[in-house]
């Protein structure tokens, strides 16, 4: 078996948060015991509600923050032992909001060339040639090369951000909701561009989204995150065909349909997102779970293996596993 390009082993990130004057600090578990493997060339999606720890996981993968415990490996080499610049050569981000991810004081040429400058690659003429090449690759006309971000549309800005991410020829792109800040009409273009670039540059995507329609369209594997933990990780067909975890089912059921006669979807889960400082006992999803039993509030569930992944639920028994 080949070494996975990204491997997370029991990665945990906790924060100490003050609760006010003279009160003890509490521990907030943003990411708790996440284990994932991302194989080369696949699109691995991560879905979950706001506050579930998706963006924290993205920052961990980019090396922007260090995990409290656990290990992240790139091609089998732990990220902690690698130089930050070496990590940057392999993994690049595409952020959610292209209005804040591009320095407003820099021209497109400077923005795209920044990774080359920071890593001291090439002469200024070589850099210019590479920038022009990247603008072609992301479908931007070369005449924007001297433009500033405020003169570009949202879609154009996101293309600049993608060009910047690709100029170092990384292996992995961490896409943190790359289309959610864009107009709907532009979203599909950017997604199609990302898929074309994946073929052209043989990229691996770690794709964070809460748009399940996008995930179903793009992803090979999907991980569902709830309160800092992966509750289900399956192949795309498995997850969208026969979701095993009640939370995954609820997420899929909550997708709006284009037909207004069908009305608002039945979410199937109730209650608000729990406080991550004081998570519920047992299975952290039990207060909102329609299938919760008394056992769920006592015991944290173990992972149940499926042919194409796992789910962490007491009720995702073998019967469901067979069906999945």
């Amino acid at each position, binding site marked *: 078996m080949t070494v996975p390009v990204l491997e997370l082993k029991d990665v945990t990130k906790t924060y100490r948060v003050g609760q006010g004057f003279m009160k003890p600090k509490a521990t907030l578990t943003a990411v708790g015991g996440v284990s994932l493997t991302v194989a080369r060339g696949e699109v691995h999606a991560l879905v979950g509600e706001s506050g579930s720890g998706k963006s924290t996981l993205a920052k961990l993968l980019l090396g922007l923050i260090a995990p409290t415990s656990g290990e992240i490996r790139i091609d089998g080499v732990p990220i902690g032992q690698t130089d930050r610049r070496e990590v940057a050569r392999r*993994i690049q*981000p595409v952020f959610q909001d292209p209005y804040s*991810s591009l*320095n407003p004081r820099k021209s497109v040429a400077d923005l795209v060339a*920044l*990774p080359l400058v*920071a890593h001291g690659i090439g002469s200024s003429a070589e850099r210019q040639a590479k920038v022009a090449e990247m603008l072609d690759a992301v479908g931007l006309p070369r005449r924007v090369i*001297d433009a*500033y971000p405020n003169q570009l549309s949202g879609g154009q800005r996101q293309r600049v951000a993608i060009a910047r991410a690709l100029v170092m020829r990384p292996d992995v792109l961490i896409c943190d909701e790359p289309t959610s800040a864009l107009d709907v009409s532009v979203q599909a273009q950017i997604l199609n561009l990302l898929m074309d670039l994946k073929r052209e540059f043989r990229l691996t995507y770690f794709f964070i989204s809460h748009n399940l329609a*996008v995930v179903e369209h793009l992803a090979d594997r999907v991980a569902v995150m709830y309160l800092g933990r992966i509750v289900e990780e399956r192949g795309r067909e498995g997850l969208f065909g026969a979701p095993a975890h009640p939370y995954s089912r609820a997420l899929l059921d909550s997708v709006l349909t284009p037909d207004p006669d069908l009305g608002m979807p039945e979410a199937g889960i109730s209650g608000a997102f729990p406080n991550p400082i004081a998570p519920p006992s047992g299975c952290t999803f039990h207060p909102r779970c329609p299938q919760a039993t008394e056992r769920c509030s006592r015991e944290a569930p173990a992972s149940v293996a499926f042919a194409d992944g796992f789910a962490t639920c007491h009720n995702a028994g073998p019967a469901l596993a067979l069906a999945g």
Partner: protein
Amino acid sequence: MTAPAPSSALAPAAALEAVPPRRSPTARFLRRAGRNPSFMIGATVLAIIVAMALFAPLITAYDPYDQDIARRLIPPVWHAKGSWEHWLGTDKLGRDYFARLVYGARISLLIGIATVVVSGLIGTALGVAGGYFGGRVDMAIGYVVNVRLALPVVLIALAAAALVGSSLETVILVLGLLLWDRFAVVARSATMQVAHADYIAAARAIGCSTRRIVLSEVMPNILNPLIVVATLEMAHAILLEAALSFLGLGVQPPLPSWGLMIAEGKQFMFFSAWVIAIPGVALASLVLAINLLGDGLRDVTAPENRS
């Protein structure tokens, strides 16, 4: 969403939208500045005073130090006894007043600029470090700022003058080492805003060093408010120098400082009011020009939504 990918990533039609004419931030800044009256008036007056200071020997034939006891306290040309020979008159030692005014502009500008350079470097470095690194660094720097704010400037200048003697260098050093508080406070809050932007996270994920992030990502984005602070502090420093020189703790005679000219003229102010009025007007116009320029800059560099 389910549509197949287009045949090529090379030419999606929507990316070929019209691009507005390219104008760098600098070009847009100059266009807006040209339409701002307070900026233009301030810049013009300041430019005149700077030109006076730079080309002083070409503007007046007199030496500001040349005394002529026989021609003391000649009034300016608009007085009955005035003459075009000394069109702003002479002081109590018979020195040409216009020459002293022109050379005095050098002292005022030198003090204003040198103080702002020294205090700007100190304050910006502290403020950016506090705002960017946060946490304990920020707490320590906040403490230093508070300590500085607890020190009265004139009192420190007085102590310094008593310790090492008053001179031009002492004034610049004392003011430069004391007037950095606003730079620090403004740089800190501006940096804190910028530091949370995604482009800083992007720069870090790209592998930029902290030095590069601070210098090329943070600094250009906090420069506008700092330039405004610099103009205000320059006016502040020029006024403080005049005040210190007036008290005899600043620039020492025979240097032609405007504050010193007022101090030397105060015994004649009842019968020769122009001795005080002329350097006073010069000082007021310089400070007014710098303040107008600062106000103009603030408006010109403000985001589009403000006036």
